[in-house]
């Protein structure tokens, strides 16, 4: 068995990675609900008798559609209605229709480049903060994930171990990520101890806007890059090795084959990573909220926090204003999604 060669064995594993999973999990969920499922079966069999086999599709899709409709689809439409109503009451009957007022408040600016001249200056600060964050964080994520994926794709020992190491922070909750770094970055934290050990003066990171804007980008990248690395690694491994062999025969060096083979063939995957990280970055909130609470000042106050704050954590709950801001955020996300679809279709056509 061992003579067959470890590489052959490895391939088989990779193709069917889930073979032993059910034994691992023991599938407790399924077993626990078996009785429950039998009870449902009694009811559904009766229904099948009434409506016939062909219409059972409706019955199976119904529970999902009910929840989906109530908590996703209906709220999506309702969001627009909220955006056109005022007041601080959550119930629709008590909300006066105000037309475009909420959007007018949001967009009322003497100079759009200067949030100080805006009526709702926090919205614009959040908008520009988010804009800056997205650009730096997405670029950093794509580049670092690519470098890591390339490194992991080399002929290395302990590849599985290294892959897990880079992926591990992805699993941590945003709250945990925020707390870990809050602990490290505090005034008497370990980072300042290291700086002093190297003869550099300690820095008050948490009260310095520029530093915190940097750290927020750093930490978000730290926490998410492993996910994109995995996607890129899968992309790299799907490039046929014959291409590299052919390139080598033609005398191509490592740099040549990277530029002429790897990069072009990896482009579709890179676009996926770009768009996914873009959509993710626009929604930046939780780990930053725990780490900085939006501060110092409003330096790390982003759009989702603006929505949260306007609707849920202020004394007066301006649901209409928050909904209007959600519409703006939704439009941005929609644009990115369309961008992805367009890219996907273009690369399919090519």
């Amino acid at each position, binding site marked *: 068995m061992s003579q067959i060669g470890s590489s052959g064995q490895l391939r088989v594993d990779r193709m069917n*990675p*889930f073979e032993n*999973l*059910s034994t691992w*999990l023991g599938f407790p*969920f399924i077993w*626990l609900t078996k009785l429950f499922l039998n009870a449902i079966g009694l009811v*559904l*069999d009766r229904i*099948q008798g009434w409506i016939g*086999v*062909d219409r059972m*599709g*409706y019955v*199976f899709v119904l529970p*999902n*559609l009910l*929840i989906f409709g109530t*908590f996703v*689809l209906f*709220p999506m439409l309702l*969001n627009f209605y*909220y955006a056109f109503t005022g007041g601080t009451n*959550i119930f629709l009957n008590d909300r006066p229709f105000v037309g475009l007022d909420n959007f007018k408040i949001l967009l009322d600016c003497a100079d759009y480049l200067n949030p100080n001249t805006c009526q709702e200056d926090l919205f614009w600060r959040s908008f520009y903060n988010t804009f800056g964050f997205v650009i730096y964080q997405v670029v950093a994520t794509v580049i670092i994930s690519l470098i*890591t994926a390339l*490194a*992991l794709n*080399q*002929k*290395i*020992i302990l590849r*599985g171990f290294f892959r*897990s*190491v*880079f992926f*591990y*922070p992805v*699993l*941590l*909750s945003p*709250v*945990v990520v925020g*707390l*870990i770094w809050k*602990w490290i970055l505090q005034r008497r934290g370990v980072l300042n101890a290291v700086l002093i*050990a190297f003869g550099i003066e300690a820095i008050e990171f948490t009260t310095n806007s520029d530093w915190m804007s940097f750290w927020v980008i750093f930490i978000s990248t*730290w926490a998410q890059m492993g*996910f994109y690395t*995995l*996607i890129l690694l*899968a992309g790299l491994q799907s490039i046929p090795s014959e291409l590299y062999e052919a390139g080598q025969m033609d005398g191509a060096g490592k740099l040549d084959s990277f530029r002429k083979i790897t990069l072009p063939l990896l482009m579709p995957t890179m676009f996926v990573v770009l768009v996914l990280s873009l959509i993710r970055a626009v929604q930046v*909130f939780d780990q930053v909220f*725990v780490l900085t609470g939006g501060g110092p000042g409003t330096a790390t106050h982003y759009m*989702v926090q603006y*929505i949260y704050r306007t*609707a*849920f954590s202020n004394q007066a709950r301006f649901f209409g204003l928050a909904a209007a801001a959600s519409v703006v955020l*939704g439009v941005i*996300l*929609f644009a990115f999604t369309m961008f992805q679809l367009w890219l996907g279709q273009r690369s399919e056509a090519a």
Partner: protein
Amino acid sequence: MTTITQFLTRRRFSERVDITDVLTYAYLIFGTCLMFGPVLWLVMSSFKTEAALSKFPPTFLPFSQRSVVVEGYDDPLPLFLVTLEDGTQVEMAQVRRVGIEAQMVDLQHPSEIIKVNINQRTEINELTFAWNNYTQPLRMFDFVTYLRNSVLVTVLATILTLIINSMAAFALSKYQFRGRNFIFVVIISTLMIPISVILVPVYLVITNLNMNNTLWGVIIPGAATPTGVFLLRQYMLTIPDELIDSARIDGSSEWRIYWQIILPLARPALAVLTIFSVMWRWNDFLWPLIVLSKQELFTLQVGLNAFQGELNIQWHFILAMTVLTLLPITVVFAFLQRFITTGIATTGMK
């Protein structure tokens, strides 16, 4: 033994050591430190006593000052190594400190107080693990309640997600009915709509259904996830229809076909969705933060955030609770890392 040395020295493919190899390993080792270091630091810090945590510069291992019970004093006194004028060193316990002078007692003659300059004494430290950090919050705070809430939310939400999404996926992949494609397209088109965009209207729905400040309000809205439907449907399409047809001929009801044929065959995809769902729900923050305002309903993430937001941050408890919060996910990852990484790489989702 030879196999171990073979394993350690073997090189997978090529024979010569290249500069890119050196760079790759340097990068991977640096990356390992950067990705794991912060978590390791958190774990080490969580074992330090409150006094040890406030020390600067901090030590890596949880050292803390030794203390002794001295006759005539109620509390244990901190132990110091005192250098006397003649150069000999004696262990003494400190009674109190006044300015630059410390009042100490020799352990042999506890009744006699000796005045020592504080520069002449050094602390006697020993390795101590402050298990108190872990046990005390269990009693002092509602940590157990938060833990229970988090487990409840995670388990119930995952069961619900698995059942309703697999039912819908079954209907959408194995039945022909009017509106099927329309339903599928509508579900898929919301794949990129995050809850942060529809916070306000979902909150209204929750309030109207009296699910505000209940765990159900956290569990149900996210249960019908487009990701789950998509993942399961794509997998079920690969299950041959002949299986279903022959089961029908044998007289199986549709419900039996669903849970005795389709579900077992779809186990790989269900496993991936289980892992995703556990991860999403355990780490969820923004939505529980909005729905739950009663402290006894907080999940771990919300509870942790509430603690760290207090004016007087009790780091020694927070660090320990953070470790407990990341522990379950880490254990799951340690056992299932291969499935998680391949699952994500093949589906491209999180």
